[in-house]
């Protein structure tokens, strides 16, 4: 199904100029986003399809208010943050290489340590 989603995604991007995403953060990760848990964002059109690696850069530039090092390390998310794409662990979706589709749901969740 990953392949079918990817091909659907390609088709999508040839038709479409902008990419609309739901970005959610929880478990404390929302504190990096000014305490706001739900963001509905629109990524500008570009010739290549957007992948998660590019999304992380875009988020750093456009959504994070301070201390980006608590969100990314190198070109990936920092240890302790789990990324979910459409309610599945991003590891199942291709991680940084996953090509985003319109209306995708991306969640950044910080592991909780309270009890």
């Amino acid at each position: 199904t990953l392949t079918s989603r990817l091909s659907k995604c390609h088709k999508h991007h040839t038709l479409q100029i902008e990419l609309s995403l739901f970005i959610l953060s929880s478990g404390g990760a929302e504190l990096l986003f000014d305490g706001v848990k739900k963001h509905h964002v629109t990524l500008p059109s570009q010739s290549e399809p957007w992948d998660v690696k590019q999304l992380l850069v875009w988020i750093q530039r456009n959504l994070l208010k301070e201390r980006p090092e608590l969100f990314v390390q190198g070109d990936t998310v920092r240890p302790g943050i789990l990324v979910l794409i459409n309610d599945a662990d991003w590891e199942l979706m291709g991680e940084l290489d996953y090509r985003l589709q319109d209306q995708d749901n991306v969640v950044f969740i910080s592991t909780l340590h309270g009890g």
Partner: protein
Amino acid sequence: PTKAKAALSNEDIMRYSRQLLLPELGVQGQLNLSKTSVLIVGCGGLGCPLAQYLAAAGIGRLGLLDYDEVELSNLHRQVLHGEENRGQAKALSAATAVKRLNSTVECIPYHLQLSPENALQLIQQYPAANVSSTYNVPTRYLVNDACVLSGKPLVSASALRMEGQLTVYNYRGGPCYRCLYPVPPPQETVTNCSDGGVLGVVPGIMGCFQALEVLKIASGRGSSCGQQLVMFDAQDARFRSIKLRPKQAGCAVCGENPSVTQLADYEAFCGAAATDKCRKLNL
């Protein structure tokens, strides 16, 4: 290890009658519970309801581990303890409360800190599910590795502010904690309840949820939370279930060529102390 019951006593039948009626449990499931021993690591906000419902349901043996003493600031969420127990070891206070509810459960309090030196020996005494409700990072890796090395499932939950998370690790081929988090988080990103606060009933719900999954595993039905992350948001009263990655071939402890074959220094690994007594507020 715990006395193998061949049949239920008349008193057992009376006490458990409302759950014996369930086709999902029945007499065989109840006997399975009575043969199960569970170690609860942490008798706090999660451990209290967890111990309460496991004991009520008739788990055979319950290990209650906590190094801490009861304080007034615990009582808004650690409902097994009472005002009169202030200053008492949590493990003892919890054991007394559990006994009041069900004296047929074998209850063993451990007033100590889990360490690389004692963890394996302790955990091996608890053949079935091993439950962690512990919050600090080094102890989470320690409990995870000890469970993997002893081949036991780990029903893990956490709660902070108005949110909760639950996963059953190392269960039926699913991932362990290290498969998900191979590298510990930077210490300044870790918040605990003293720092971030928590609404008491949130660990209440998550601890009950842990009890449910332990009971499903112990009775023989099996958990539905292996390779799943259950997220709870108390503000909008919503649960979400997330499909996690499978067991990772490259995992340092459960993978194909594990580099962790015995318990090591987890405080050094995590760059953090294994207590939650003092910690700065960050996020």
